[in-house]
């Protein structure tokens, strides 16, 4: 910001107009201003003294910002101009499946018939929602090859924990106390964390030189105390675990269960189902695979589908189509209609439910988006999604093979991991540098430094919604960047065309300023 007052109407913080910082809402505040307008109610205007006992009364109001609606709009509109998004360009962030999010789903989520329904309304009064959830449940079972599903988990990690609690309940119901869960070294960090929260110990298995679980090592760690194994397939290196059937056999052999981390489900839609590979528990990241957008970090939805032997343990209550006997009946995808008979749908508790895992029924409006997305595609369409996602990733893999080192030089699935280790050795330019330089080229960075098993990893997931022209432009941008590094350019200065340059992460952690009130007295600038 140039010197002078923090002014609500100054757009110099919008990249369109220059690169100043945007003041916080608190700096734009002036006591006495307001935006709010509330309905006229006609209710007697009792004073606070008449309503709240003295000891409970707040002395001063919560200090929030006081701004005009005009300044509120200016502020957040300008902030939006300082934010990259799928709608602005390609987002090849590996493991995140940042595909295009169809706008029709926004319309679905905004339908008053869905968005304005209270979650505690009696089942009779929300038959449409129950039908929707029952339909989605059936669809997700069909996609994963499982028998039953819970829609409650709010994100992938919540699904993981739910799955592990199911694993625990299953073994306990059989009178078994199993303590260990096996995880490959390439796994996402949420997997071990979930295992710990589920009350298990983590046993790590290494990857082999082909980037897959080392089968021998796996066999070595399996035993009667193994509750199960968590895998994603294709794994986080974008490689399909070819020995999955054998692995499943081995795990089942020792009485363990197989958990499928659905973060990579996009790659195999309609090609192979986790259930058919031998998995017992599957979570899905609807915000990835089914494009429910990621919202700058959430909301997501992480439904968990299970094989029939685990169905009775699922969280409750579950939405069901009612049978005369009072229980629920399975439905076929597409068989649900809105012309529901009164009371056709209701809630039901699985016999040995582990209990609730969400305040209500899960991230319902996210679930509705996912169902809409799936319905537009249908079975065929989902298969096309997987094909194109894998095609795009492989095309980039081959196209960039001479530019960056491919971590594992074999056909990949929906994403491909490159390594900047060689580049770094030659030029000093790291994976991070390449990612930052890509920002300046008009692309979001790939995922960097994950998976941990690859040195200087650059994990590229183009997704199926990017065109060949975009892939080519992305490849050329990478070429330019690598050429610049080879030519001696210091990529540490990148990016320069973004609203801010590289940020000082060390200072952020060292002297934590996590609220406006924690700001040091003198302004930084």
């Amino acid at each position, binding site marked *: 910001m140039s010197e002078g007052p923090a002014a609500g109407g100054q757009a110099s913080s919008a990249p369109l107009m220059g690169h100043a910082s945007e003041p916080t809402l608190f700096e734009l505040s002036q006591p006495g201003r307001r935006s709010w307008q509330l309905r006229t109610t006609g209710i007697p205007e009792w004073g606070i003294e008449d309503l709240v006992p003295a000891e409970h009364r707040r002395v001063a109001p919560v200090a929030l910002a006081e701004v005009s609606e005009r300044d509120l709009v200016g502020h957040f509109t300008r902030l939006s101009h300082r934010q990259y998004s799928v709608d602005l360009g390609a987002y090849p*962030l590996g493991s995140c499946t940042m595909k295009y999010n169809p706008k029709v789903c926004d319309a679905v989520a905004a339908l008053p018939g869905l968005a304005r329904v209270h979650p505690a309304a009696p089942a009779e009064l929300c038959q449409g929602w129950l039908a929707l959830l029952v339909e989605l449940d059936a669809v997700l079972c069909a996609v994963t090859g499982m028998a039953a599903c819970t829609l409650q988990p709010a994100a992938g990690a919540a699904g993981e924990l739910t799955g592990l609690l199911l694993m625990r309940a299953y073994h306990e119901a059989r009178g078994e106390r199993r303590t260990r869960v096996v995880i490959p070294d390439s796994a996402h960090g949420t997997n071990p964390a979930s295992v710990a929260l589920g009350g298990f110990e983590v046993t790590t298995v290494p990857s082999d030189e082909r980037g897959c679980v080392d089968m021998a090592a796996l066999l070595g760690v399996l035993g009667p105390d193994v509750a199960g194994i968590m895998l994603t397939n294709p794994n986080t290196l974008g490689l399909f675990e070819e020995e999955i059937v054998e692995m499943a056999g081995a795990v089942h052999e020792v009485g363990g269960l197989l958990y499928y981390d659905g973060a990579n489900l996009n790659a195999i839609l309609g090609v192979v189902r986790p259930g058919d590979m031998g998995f017992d528990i599957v979570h899905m990241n609807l915000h990835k695979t089914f494009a429910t957008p990621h919202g700058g970090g959430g909301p997501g939805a992480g439904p968990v589908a299970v094989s029939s032997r685990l169905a009775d343990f699922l969280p409750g209550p579950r939405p069901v189509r009612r049978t005369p006997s009072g229980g629920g009946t399975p439905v076929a995808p597409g068989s649900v209609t809105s012309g529901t008979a009164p009371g056709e749908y209701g809630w039901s508790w699985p016999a040995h439910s582990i209990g609730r895992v969400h305040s209500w029924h899960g991230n319902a409006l996210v679930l509705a988006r996912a169902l809409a997305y799936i319905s537009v595609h249908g079975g065929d369409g989902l298969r096309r999604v997987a094909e194109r996602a894998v095609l795009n990733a492989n095309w980039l893999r081959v196209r960039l093979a001479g530019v960056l080192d491919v971590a594992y030089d074999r056909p990949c699935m929906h994403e491909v991991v490159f390594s900047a280790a060689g580049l770094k050795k030659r030029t000093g330019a790291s994976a991070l540098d390449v990612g930052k330089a890509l920002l300046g080229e008009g692309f979001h960075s790939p995922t960097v430094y994950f998976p941990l098993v690859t040195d200087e990893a650059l994990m590229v997931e183009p997704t199926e919604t990017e065109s060949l022209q975009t892939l080519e432009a992305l490849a050329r941008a990478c070429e330019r960047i690598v050429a610049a590094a080879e030519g001696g350019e210091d990529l540490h200065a990148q990016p320069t065309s973004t609203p801010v340059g*590289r940020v000082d992460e060390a200072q952020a952690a060292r002297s934590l300023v996590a609220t406006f009130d924690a700001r040091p007295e003198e302004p930084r600038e």
Partner: protein
Amino acid sequence: MADYLPHTDEELASMLDFLGLASLDDLFSAVPAAVRLAGGLDLPEGRPEPDVLAHMEALGEANAARADRLVCFAGAGAYDHEVPEVVRALAGRSEFVTSYTPYQAEVAQGVLQAVFEYQTMVARLAGLPVANASLYDGASALAEAVHLGVAATGRPEVWVSAGVHPHWRAVLATLAAGAGYQVVEVPLADGRTRWPQGSVTGSPGVVVAAYPNYLGCLEDVGALGPLAAAHGAVLVVAADPVAAGILRSPGEWGADVVVGEGQAFGTPLGFGGPYLGLFACAAAHVRRLPGRLVGETVDTSGRTAYVTTLRAREQDIRREKATSNVCTNQTLMAVTAAVQLGWLGTTGLAEVALRCARGTRYARQELLAIDGITPLTGDTPVVRELAVRTPVPARVVVDRLAEHGYLAGVALDQLVGEDGDPSVSAADAAHGLLVAVTERRTRQEIDGLVAALDKAVRR
């Protein structure tokens, strides 16, 4: 065959050619033939967008309880508050909606700064110095607070007031099974938790209370700080963030951690989600704070900039040593809350809280004037919600009122579930009706509800 895929037939051919493949099937040669799906997914064919939208609209029509058709007096943690178009428009901007977690700060200042502002607002509401970037919902925020408390004290015994929302307690119980906590529920009487007095057995690492509790009552939270301190326990307060507009902050009452459900701040009822888990804590616990945290810093040329920070607490670094596994959270709802709280501002939040309290007071007065309706929580003060006993089962009341255009409230037994709640008698559960009056409810609507209820309980 409508979809969102850009590939033309020529491009498919040329790309396969480039890869030396004969067909798209060849892309999947790594998948063992034995498990490959032969006939494709057992799903209906794809349908064009307008057909799907029409189907979804029809499902919406089948929801009689929509708040644009039935006047909403249901609450229990999910409220029909005013959300102006300006909040929807700003929070709905596609830059916020279609971005990922802000891993690349240089191109994510929009989300980062909005979340920084959100953190500030939540911290101020809670009366604590720091708040995180959001958790899934109220229940998950509570569970994370317990994780934090147990990790901080090393003691897995958790005392939880029965005034905490029944579903949140249920979620805590579910997760406790994995984490190995001993959860002790402390019952209510007349709307107040009967905390153990004097020297008691047990050694809680965490004490959890609600303010106001789920029946709308203001409990004696003043006693809790000393209680927790006596046990060296972490005090967690589940606070209603709207009522906080007129109530002393939990921080002032001595809370170490404040959790809450942030749906009231701009997020639609949406059948229960996506909502917003609020989480704030004392400075001592900042390195145990679950989830993401945005910090302010500078860029290379000294300009103010924002970035996610203290990553070292997070599961991707700590892996199995992490005390939380949350990754994707509810950022968009946090951004929405920042916009809504920006819209309300200092005076607006206080006004909304005051109006809720007035409406609750007016509804209480009118409802209790009906023959046969009695308060469920004695004369404990209520500000946010009220629980009454109805002469006919509350579920019947709700059903009957729906015919008159009202969602009369939430029947207690529906909330506490089939197994009931130790703190609510079976009779109270069956005949308890929880009525919420937000600032959107008019006197005319309340009078209409009361008149209809009067008839319904006598029919």
